[in-house]
Structures are given as structure tokens and as C-alpha cells.
């Protein structure tokens, strides 16, 4: 655990050692809040449904931008060799990096908290729905992040890692859309709905967005996150041979 903390500290401060952190937070908040606030006053509804509804698409761009450097940068500067010859398990290094990127994402997400505070002042929102919406956002972010860190591990170049991560997240997103599932079903009967059920994230995310906390949905996000993190560790171990 102490090893994870050591790596975490290094990786978390690395975000703030470059201007990327500040640019990321500003762009993230301006885009998310701006796009939410524009129609908000026209509709006059005291909820955050639209805010959370936008996230699955937004995070496809934002999360890979955070995860792309996690391994690719170490490989470029040669510190990868240092990390892999320290007396620390590769799974601990991976976990430290992953948690640091997640912590940074949580900082950015915390920047949107003025919205629920404002809504609370303006009307009577459903507090439970907002809570489960945020929980959904964190789970969605953690899934995308695990996909992103896996992509970063495969590649040496940050830009390629960004594009690959984005593509993989986009595929997960698309598989969950009923129209896409129906099209795939048209090619191979049953495959589309199978993929939609087990891999597609939209359905699972939407129930959290509506304020429904179902065990199945939580399990979906946590399991898939764990699968990609495990794949990342396996690749780190297998690279030696």
C-alpha cells in the first residue's frame, strides 16, 4: 500500500507540474457547465439530467487526454525502465498511476459542484438523483480511465495512446446504443443485443442518471474497470518475455 502511495504522489503532482492540468480543468468546466447552463434557464427545470446525459460523450475525449501519458510518457523518457526495476510489483505501479489519474478527474468533477448548489437555491431538485448522477459520472470515468491506461500501456507515443483510448471508449459507448445493437443484430442475430447487455454502457449509465441504484449497474462498471486494469498488469508482466 505504501508503494502505491509513493507512485500516486509522483503521478498526481506530475499533472500539476505542467500547464496541462489547468488547461484541462478550465476546458472541462467551461464546456460542461456552458453547454448545460445555456438551455437550463429556458427549460426552467431544477435537475441535472442533461448535465449527466452529456457526460458519456464528453468523457470519451476528456478521459483519454488524462490517461494517455500514464505509460507512454515513461516509455519515452526511459523512466519506464526505472519503474520496472524498483522493488515494487507492477500491479502496484499500475494502481498508483490509475488512482492518481482518477484523483485528478475527481478534482475536475468537483469543480462542477456549484451547479447542484445553485439548483438547490433555485428550486427543489431530487437530491438522490443528483447523488447517483455523480456516482455514475465517477464510475463512467473509472471505466474510461482503465481503458485509457490500458491503451497507453500498449503504445510508446502519447498521441497514439489518446486516439486508441478514445476509439476504445467510443466503441463501448456505441455498443450500448439500441440502434447500433439492432444493426449488429441484423448481421448476426443476437450478437448486437448480447454485446449491448454485457459491454454497452449507455443502459447501465442511464439508470444511474435517473437515480436508480441497481447492483447490476454498479457491478458492470466495477467489473469492466477491473478487467482492463488486470489486462494492463498482465501486459506489464508479459512484456519481459
Amino acid at each position, binding site marked *: 500500500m505504501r*508503494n502505491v502511495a*509513493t507512485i500516486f504522489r509522483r503521478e498526481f503532482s*506530475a499533472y500539476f*507540474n505542467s500547464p496541462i492540468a489547468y488547461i484541462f480543468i478550465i476546458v472541462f468546466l467551461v464546456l460542461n457547465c456552458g453547454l448545460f447552463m445555456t438551455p437550463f434557464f429556458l427549460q426552467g427545470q431544477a435537475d441535472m439530467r442533461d448535465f449527466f446525459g452529456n457526460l458519456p460523450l464528453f468523457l470519451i475525449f476528456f478521459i483519454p487526454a488524462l490517461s494517455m501519458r500514464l505509460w507512454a510518457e515513461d516509455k519515452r523518457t526511459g523512466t519506464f*525502465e*526505472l519503474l520496472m526495476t524498483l*522493488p515494487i510489483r507492477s500491479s502496484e505501479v499500475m494502481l498508483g498511476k490509475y488512482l492518481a489519474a482518477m484523483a485528478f478527474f475527481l478534482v475536475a468533477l468537483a469543480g462542477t459542484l456549484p451547479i447542484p448548489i445553485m439548483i438547490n437555491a433555485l428550486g427543489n431538485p431530487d437530491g438522490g438523483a443528483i447523488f447517483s448522477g455523480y456516482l455514475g459520472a465517477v464510475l463512467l470515468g473509472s471505466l474510461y480511465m482503465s481503458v485509457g491506461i490500458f491503451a497507453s500501456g500498449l503504445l510508446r507515443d502519447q498521441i497514439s495512446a489518446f486516439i486508441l483510448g478514445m476509439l476504445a471508449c467510443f466503441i463501448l459507448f456505441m455498443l450500448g446504443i439500441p440502434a447500433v445493437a439492432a444493426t449488429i443484430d441484423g448481421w448476426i442475430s443476437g450478437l448486437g443485443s448480447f454485446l449491448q447487455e454485457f459491454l454497452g454502457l449507455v443502459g447501465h449509465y442511464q439508470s444511474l442518471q435517473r437515480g436508480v441504484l441497481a447492483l447490476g449497474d454498479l457491478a458492470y462498471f466495477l467489473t469492466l474497470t477491473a478487467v482492463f486494469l488486470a489486462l494492463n498488469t498482465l501486459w506489464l508482466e508479459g512484456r*519481459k518475455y
Partner: protein
Amino acid sequence: MIEVRDVTKRFGTTVALDAVSFSLQRGEILGFLGPNGAGKSTAMKIITTYLAPDEGQVAVEGIDVLEQPLAVRGRIGYQPENVPLYPDMSVHDYLTFVGRARGLTGARFQERLGWCVEACGLQTELKKPIQELSKGFRQRTGLAQALIHDPEILILDEPTSGLDPLQIIGIRELIKSLAGQKTIIFSTHVLQEVSPVTNRVVIINEGRIIADGMIDDLARRAMGSNRIFAGLRHDVDEVERSLRQLQGVKEAIRLPAGERGTARFELRAPFGTDLTGAVANLARERNWELCELHEAAFSLEDTFIALTREDRAVRQEVA
């Protein structure tokens, strides 16, 4: 201490290491020599557990690198060829990170940090971001990183590459000062760097070990003879005739004449013959003026070239 047995490593179809074996006692310093791309780095990466061997075993203090990689890593300080630095961190923060990752805390860490900074001459650079350091200070930061946990074993991959002569001497002195306390493997392709630091070398070429031993022995084995330079003031042809008649002389090579027409020769004779004495006697008997007489050791370059050639010839025969 370090035991490498029949290690083979392939990358795709290229064979980076071909049944490499060597071993190292506690407190020994080993110069790991070879041209670029010979497999030096690959061998070091295997010892440090960064890569796994395809075949063969490597044990560090009796611990197998595949079975307990973490235990091996804890005992080794490693400076890779491409110095692994975080450009955005200061030297102090970087060494703190590595120290923590190596399990150092509190007073013990402060003590080691102080020692490393002092030994590597980093006092003035401690607060600077690494991206602003010169090449020499980057190398030294890399070395400090390898020393921070006071490891028993040091593995340094080209620790002096890209440094100026003064800095090279500094690193050399540092390695020498650690002699006896630590087991050290350092690689280089600059041969002159080896002899001031250690006598024990392993020479590797195209993934195979072509020589392992003391520099002097290797020179003898490779060249098979001793070399003497003699200069006598007399008629060149007569001197040559007399020299060739001396006992043990295999070859007498005429060299450009020296000052005031000195006849100069390079003589070769098997090791153990007292050729300098014989030449001195000859000069006394004939009453020739002796202007130059000295034995020339073979340089590591000569040895290296001879050994690589020999290796190539053997391989061509086999093929």
C-alpha cells in the same frame, strides 16, 4: 554473487545473447566491453529483471531473477543507458521519490541523500528542475539514484557516455572509491575507460562472450607474444641481421629511422624471454650506441581487435 549461466535472449529472429555465461564474486568490479549492439545492455537488463531470459538462469546472491524478481531488485542499484529521469521534477524531489520507492524513510533517507549528493557532486543542482540540467549532471543524478539505497550490487550501463574528460575522471574515481565494498558491473564501448578502474573484463561481441579474464592475460592470449622497441646507432642492415640472430626473436620489424640515423626496430618474442637484456648485451658487445630500449604492453584496443577477429574467423570456419 552474480551468476549468469547459458543465457539466451532473442528479439524476434535476432539473437541478442547466445548462451552467455559469466560470474562475479563479492566486491569485484567487472568491465563489460563490446561494440555497440553487442548485447551488453540486454545482459544488464536481464540481471536487473527488466527482461526475462529465454533460456538459462541468472542468480543474484543465489536468488533466481525469475522466481523472486522483487528480492533481486532490492539488492541492485541500476543506472540504465538511457538515464531514467523525470524532467519536471527537481533533483531533490526525484531522489526523494526513488528513495521512498526503495523503502527509505526518515533519518536513514536523509543520511543516504546527503551521502549521494556529496559523492555525485550535486550540491549546487539540488533544487533545479532536471530538464534544466546539463548532460553531465543528468548522468550524475542517474548515478545518485542507483546509489540511494546503498545497494550491494551496482549495475551501470555506459555511465560515462556523453561526458567530458574531467567528468569521466570524476565518475571513474567514484567507481574506484566503491571498490571492495560493492560488486559492480559497468559497461562501456570506450576501452581506455576500463583499465584505470579494474583488471577484470568480459568482452562480448554479437551476443557471444569472446573473452573473460584479466586484461593482461587476455592480451597475452590474444597476441601470443611480447613487444619490444629497440633503437641502435649503426648500419641498419647489420643491426637487423644481428637482432634476428638473438634467441627467441620471432619477428624484427623495421621502423622509420630515428634522430641522427638511429636504426629502430620492433621485436616480437614469446612471453618469458628476456629480450631487453639480450639487446642490451648485444649493444655492449658490438659497442653500438643504444638509444632506445623498452617493452610495450599491448593496449586493450589491440587485444579487443585481435579477439574479435579471432572470433569471426572461428565462426566463419564453422559456417
